[in-house]
């Protein structure tokens, strides 16, 4: 019983923290543009930096 209650508390805390993270991601604008980041992540930083230096 105690173990279950402990696990339930942890599950609830995790849920609340996930919702909290989701709100933080929203307010920092991470969901404002859902298309560009998918392209941005493909950028080859190594090649570019090598070239710039």
């Amino acid at each position: 019983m105690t173990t279950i209650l402990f696990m339930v508390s942890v599950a609830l805390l995790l849920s609340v923290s996930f919702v909290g993270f989701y709100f933080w991601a929203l307010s920092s604008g991470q969901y404002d543009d859902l298309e560009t980041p998918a392209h941005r992540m493909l950028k080859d930083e190594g090649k570019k930096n090598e070239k710039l230096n």
Partner: protein
Amino acid sequence: MSTCTYCQSSFYGQSLFCCQSCKLLSNWLEGGVAPLNKLNSVSAKWLKYNQLVLESTFNSSIGITEKKFKFYIGGLQCSSCVHLLEDFSNYFPDVIYSKLNYSSRTLETTSKISSSLGTICEAIEQLGYEPTPIKESADYEMARTHENRDDLKRLGVAAAIAGNLMLFSIPVYVGLEGPLAFIFNWISFFIFLPLLFYVAVPFYKKSWGSLLVRRINVDTMIVVALWTGFALSTYNLLQNFGQIYFDSTASFIFLIVATRYWLKRQQDKLIHKNIFSDLFTNEIYEVKSEVRLPAHTLFLSLYQIKKEHLLVIKQNQLIPCDGELISKTAEFDLSFLTGEAFPQVKLRGEKVRAGSRLVSALCDFHCKTEAIDSELSQALAKLEIEHESKSEIQTLSDLISHRLTLVVFSLAAVFFAFTYRYLGIEAFQRCLALITIACPCAVAFGTPLAHSLGLKKALRKGYFIKSSAVFEKLSHIKKIIFDKTGTLTLPQLSLVEIFPPNLCNEYKSVILGLENASLHPVALTLKALWKEMPTASIEKVTEVAGQGVEANYSGHLYQLSKAYSDEAHEIMQVDFFVDQLKVASLSFEEKVKPEAALVISKFNQLYFKTMMLTGDIRHRALAVAKSVGIKFENVYFEQSLISKQMLVKKENPCLFVGDGLNDVAALSEAYVSFAIQGAFESTLQVSDIYAPKKNLSSLLEIIDWSHKIHQTVKTNLAFALFYNLAGGACALLGFINPLVAAVLMPISSALIIAHTTWRLR
């Protein structure tokens, strides 16, 4: 299909790279020059943007150390475009930071205070894109972002609640009892509260708004189902007896919130705000002098133009406000205002309306109003209001939800009143089972789902549809009214006769030279027809407005002048003179689009009443009607803008098919309007469906698609009605308790989702 050598994406074409960015980046990485190694001089096109007065209207920075500009970027193709434009500062030191939004095709730049807008535009253009500086209201942008985030917050919370409630409900469903079941149920109660007091707030607002005008909408029913589920579950929880329905109610609300958000995102992509400013987005005007200031030249954007300004209007530029012509003569294309294909000549002192396009060379223009006060701006503003109010029609879904709600609640109330004496609390439970199972999931999310899938697929096919209500409205249509010029006929003229037929190439070359700079329909037709022919390089061509053009070339005087317009036969004749001696004549006429007759015959076979509406004279109108197969009694000719609008109003519900903003009044008045060309956002604002790059056959396709969507919605509704009827009867007879009803409700939802996605796959 080819594969891009650099980014590996597939594209149509035979080249090695899918876009300019891939080519530039590939060359650079292979040891070539940087994408923007050296900025060439700024072209005249962008130079005017460097003027401080004009630049300040686009600069959104409030600081004094930097400038912030926003651009609409044309020509984005793949990930390389994102990389190239976001690395802009590396190639162009004036820019400190740049951020691209691929979804909205916009680029935001922060640049040094010493930078200038025109130079940045030039740099972007040299990278291979088409920049358009834009100025958007910061408040509007902020409000949109805030609204989107708010919707996503509610959606996220609804998802979290529905998911977590399932976790705590499943053990109870499979037989958990005792103190642990009691604790789990209380946890479910507390998890449910944010749904009730946060997620459901928009439902309360919409429901209240509807009740204020004495109507019940689907939100009212959702609110009642939500609160009934909550009240009975809480009552059972407090009594520690009976079933708990928090999980099924939460799942139901989550599905509704999710489908509504999806539909809203689909529609948001197509909705814009101001038609008038959209129309003049790229127009920059040269102000010659101001009445109270010493003469000087400056460039202004649309809303900076004041009354009494003297403007120098360039060829192909739109007149921004109402005023008078100062030059001796000028020729204007009024097709935007009147639909008339042939340009009109205006003389000094004559009134010229905003929206007229200058066809001849430069002219001086005296502003008598500000842009916002022009007749065109006022008319468009009025139309926007009318168009918004017109969309509030009662759709089939509204009707069903309204009646179903009334029937279900009345039935539950009557049942409870008559059976409470005999059944006690059981009567309440049966009523609750009825309300739960009869909740209109087909209306609440089956219809939005069908509509959003319909919009998405239509967009993929090249149709920009303003609102999903169009699908339902199209199914009511039995009359189709066509505009003539540009809709049933081709926008360009057709050369029907050359006399002498064997006109020598030398003369053709001279004619092309005379017409080289002209935008007159005759010039455009000849340039398209004789595109293989060399053009004589004639330096100075004099335009005689309303008459034609003339020039001295190789020791001869060449003239090209309009002879007469045979209106009865749609013929326009142009004569060619050498040293004032007529050597040739060219005859032009409007041609009917090749597919027009077939499309109209198909509509006639399907028992649609086809009609034609035009500002043209009787002879031309009847000739076109005859060639496409429209009955003469259904042809309305010599109509003004107002009479066109009145006629469409009289014929409603009808589908009006026009070729853009020259039919603005009729498009706006029609029950459903279909535009096949015109400026994108402004045309979309006044028309329900906009299909650029499509021909008239697309009408058949979109009507067929609308019928399919409408059929899907109707099948969903019929299924839901049958399901609710059978379930409701079982509930009232006591065969179904509220728990079973709560389980059956999501099953019907799942069936509706599966049916909708299968039908519209």
